[in-house]
């Protein structure tokens, strides 16, 4: 994660070179990087570094939405690896899924003048995902607590 933050910042600065957002990109890289280092030295947390790098991705959207998608994907993979995930199933597969979905979402957003419709769509999908997650968790708990199950060793 510590390596991903300056790398993404450099990419963003290069992409925005010559544009009015270039100074802002420089500041957006330095300030969060310093803050992130200070926070990380006292309380190592990958989530804090991940969030400190988001302004850089935010600004790179104005260079290209696809660049923002790529930089965000780099951040996500670095975050997953820093959080302890290893292997194909826990890093590669989620990264591919997220990159694909993010790319489509970025293209969808960039094709609309206002964010209202994408916002409503995002909220709807989030609600459905939350219900699916809670339902899956509830089913799993009910299964082990004595409901229908296939766990071995139980009568």
């Amino acid at each position, binding site marked *: 994660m510590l390596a991903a933050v300056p790398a993404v910042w450099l990419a963003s600065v290069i992409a925005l070179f010559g544009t009015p957002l270039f100074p802002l990109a420089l500041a957006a890289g330095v300030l969060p990087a310093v803050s992130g280092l200070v926070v990380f030295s006292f309380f190592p*947390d*990958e*989530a*804090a570094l*991940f*969030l400190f790098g*988001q302004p850089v*991705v*935010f*600004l790179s*959207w*104005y260079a290209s*939405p696809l660049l*923002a*998608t790529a930089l*965000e994907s780099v951040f*996500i993979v670095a*975050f997953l690896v820093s*959080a*302890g*995930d*290893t*292997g194909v*199933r*826990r890093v590669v597969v*989620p990264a591919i*899924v*997220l990159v694909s*979905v*993010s790319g489509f*979402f*970025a293209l969808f*957003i*960039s094709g*609309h003048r*206002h*964010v*209202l419709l*994408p*916002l409503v769509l*995002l*909220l709807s999908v*989030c609600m459905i*995902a*939350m219900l699916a*997650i809670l339902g*899956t*968790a509830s089913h*799993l*708990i009910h299964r*082990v*607590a*004595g409901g229908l*199950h*296939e*766990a*071995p*060793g*139980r*009568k």
Partner: protein
Amino acid sequence: MRPSRRTAVLVLAAAVSLLFAWSLDSAPALFLAGSILGLVALRAFLFLHAAGTVASSVRVARRATPFIIRQGSPVTVTCTVHFLLPPGLRADVSDVPPPGAPLTKGSVTAGNTLPGSHDITLAYGISCISCGRLSFGGVDIVLHDPFFSLLLPFRGGNFSVPTLLVDPVGRFRAGDGSGIVGEKDTEARRLLRGYGIRSFRGYMPGDDPRTIDWKLTAKHGKLFVREYAGMTGKSPLLVVDLPDSAMPCPVPLRDAVLGSALDAAREMCRMPRGCSLMVICGPNLLSFLPNERSSARLERALREYSSPQQVSRCYRALDPAVAEVFRQRLGESGVSGNDDFSRKLAEVYSAFIPAMEPLPFEVQCARALARQGDTALHVLSTGWGDTSHLAILGLQARRRGVDARIGIPDSVVSPDLLRRLKGCGYSVVRVMA
């Protein structure tokens, strides 16, 4: 399923970004919010998939020693939990002791972070304060990863075995050498030899060499033998009166009677002729075991009827002999005075006394008491509700010259109850603390 602090921060950041996107119509802010929420959702699904793998692989083997115990006794439990832990997860395993059994030693929790197959053994001790059949609650496994945690409660089936059988503590003591429970020494020589020494005499050929008193022999220079006192006792008949399950009866009352009955049965079955046991519920005979020497059978008979029902009931049942005495008294008072009511009541008694038939319970009690000549009746009852059946039992014992004693819990004792029970033929009414 609970989010970790890291997840909460990410969701909060996404919410702030969404608000920013909506208020300022910012597409990149919306994109960032969607990316963060997508990451959290995907990790949640991966976590639940891994938790399902763990749940399918859990097996438990538990052993409790001993599992038939008295209230308050310690039990040593060894529980082995087998499970498969995928990479990236941490598991905390806890065994759930039975309710009313606090932990006295060891720990019921253990943790593991290494991926792979594990067999975690939990060794601890509990003390069973509750009575009855106690089952273990099961096993709890808490799974953690950097984003979420989930409690998996494994209940029922093999996760609850073994079942502990906890008997209430017997609070009643029958007495020391009373002749009801146990034997007592007597001056007369009997077939059974007692423990006390009645006298000393000179040795005669044929005497048991083990009875030679060597101290006296050394003092006087000739052989002396001890003459032991005889041992006499009565064959105990223990009657346990369980409360009707259809009527509300305080649990401590039932536990007091059951605990005392188990205590008495264990002591009485060691007698030379064993112990006869009658389990009744009001005027209903549930079980009768004559001359039983097996403590296990007696205990099983007592525990078998956890919620007995009174099929037959007798409310203020009247014994024919007692009714005849009433009739005679009424007749005398009707003749002596101008008491019209007494005369008419005597006529009513005269009409129904010949038609009175003994209850089946009376017949059963008479047969049980008549089985052996030298019987001592010992009744344990809650004294709850109607006590007609106790009166029937006491009168049957008095008619046969059987020494009858009754024990009731102190919470139901009243002067009226004591007077009635003593009037029914019980020589001793003992209060159970």
